[in-house]
């Protein structure tokens, strides 16, 4: 399973390294979203800094949808999906590999967006490690749910419009928890302020990663 995970993740990341879709399209889109949020809120820096945690996570969610769409469309051409299915790779490994590739791209995006939030909105972070941990945990959950819904919607022609509708409400707890942890980190709170939310993220991750490992095979057969 682990060998297949590495193989699939390596494949997806190599495709990204050569096509640079996430780097040249998704990351700039995230920056555009941050700029638009600033226009919507007005030039008041205090308001922007206050809204920074939530806006960061909303931008991350939008980028997740794009990254997942890309991850699915990589397999949609030339019958690549059937190729993967016939390759004899472990479905659990396939799920973990695709999720890991999406997660790796999301982590880079989050670093860019976090930099943008700090620079553009003047958000001051007192406890940086809390933000790093919350981003990593949130990313695992987003990548796992995104990969699951991506596989489910793979064969559907109206995928582009259906996927965000299905995925974004499911990811709502990540947005809530991530925002609260950011707020705690900005207020200079201790880890205990964010710890129920960190636990919530851990539960979310564990549930969807476990579910993905179990049901990814059957999903592939039905799509």
């Amino acid at each position, binding site marked *: 399973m682990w060998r297949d995970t590495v193989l699939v993740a390596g494949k997806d990341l190599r495709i990204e390294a050569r096509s640079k879709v996430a780097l040249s399209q998704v990351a700039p889109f995230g920056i555009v979203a941050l700029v638009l949020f600033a226009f919507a809120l007005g030039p008041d820096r205090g308001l922007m800094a206050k809204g920074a945690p939530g806006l960061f996570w909303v931008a991350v969610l939008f980028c997740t949808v794009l990254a997942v769409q890309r991850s699915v469309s990589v397999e949609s051409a030339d019958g690549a999906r059937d190729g993967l299915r016939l390759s004899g790779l472990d479905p659990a490994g396939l799920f973990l590999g695709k999720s890991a590739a999406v997660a790796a791209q999301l982590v880079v995006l989050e670093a860019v967006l976090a930099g943008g939030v700090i620079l553009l909105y003047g958000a001051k972070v007192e406890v940086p490690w809390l933000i790093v941990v919350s981003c990593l945990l949130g990313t695992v959950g987003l990548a796992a*749910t995104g990969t*699951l*819904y991506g596989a*489910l919607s793979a*064969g*559907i*022609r*109206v995928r582009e419009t*259906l996927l965000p*509708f*299905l995925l974004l*409400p*499911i990811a*709502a*707890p990540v947005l*809530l*928890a991530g925002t*609260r942890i950011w707020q705690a980190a900005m207020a200079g709170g201790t880890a205990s302020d964010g710890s*129920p*939310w960190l636990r*919530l993220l851990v*539960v*979310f991750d564990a*549930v*969807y990663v476990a*579910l993905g490992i179990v*049901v990814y095979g*059957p*999903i592939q057969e*039905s*799509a």
Partner: protein
Amino acid sequence: MIPSRNVHAPPAQSPRARWAVGIIGITAVAATALTVWLGLWVTPPDQSQGDLVRLVYIHPGVAWVALYLAFALAAVSSLLFLWTRTRSMFWDRLAAASVEVGVVFNVCTLISGSIWGKPTWGVWWAWDARLTSTAVLLVLFLGYLALRRVPAEPDVRAKRSAFVALFAAVDIPIVHFSVLWWRTLHQGATVLNPNLSPTIHGSMAWTLLLGFVAVTLVFVWMLLVRYRIGVLEDYLGTGELDVALRERQAEGAVTDEEEAA
């Protein structure tokens, strides 16, 4: 010869089933009428909430159906469909019917809650934990229905929908706790409070209880009717293909005869 539309007769509903649906429907109407009469005319207004309290005879019942009954039924039927040993289109149709009727009850919950919230809290909508969970549940349900509308083979559609229902079902408790920590304003449970002793008495308690029964009966009746519609829809879907095939075959037969002549 033009083939008739009814290649196969639609799957018949047994007389007993039709009878049962009819009885449930009539009972539901009677129970609802009784609840309305008791709720609007017989019970007294509340000391603090006045006539507003009359919404309590409908709103909790509708919410119980929307948030627990319909949702649990959809989750369990989807799981039973995914379980290969119990896989049957019965569970798929039951889940679909339960979600569709559940959405109606969910919207009714939000509307009746808003009507109560405006005079009590002063706002139509508050970002309270229960309201927010209800809204998220509604959006998840709507996503499920949107997925079902995507044209697909019945068994593919059934599998996809069951997976989406499963993912949503495991999300609901997480959403519930996250918004609970996020915000809480809604008044505590009145009937099902932890020590299980209702905090209202007399005719009001009975009317409230009757409201639960009436709304549940309405739900069951709608569910059964929607299930039957699902059966007929599937019949039409496959039946149309049969009709089209026969028409093409009939055309072939005509040209053969012409050639022979």
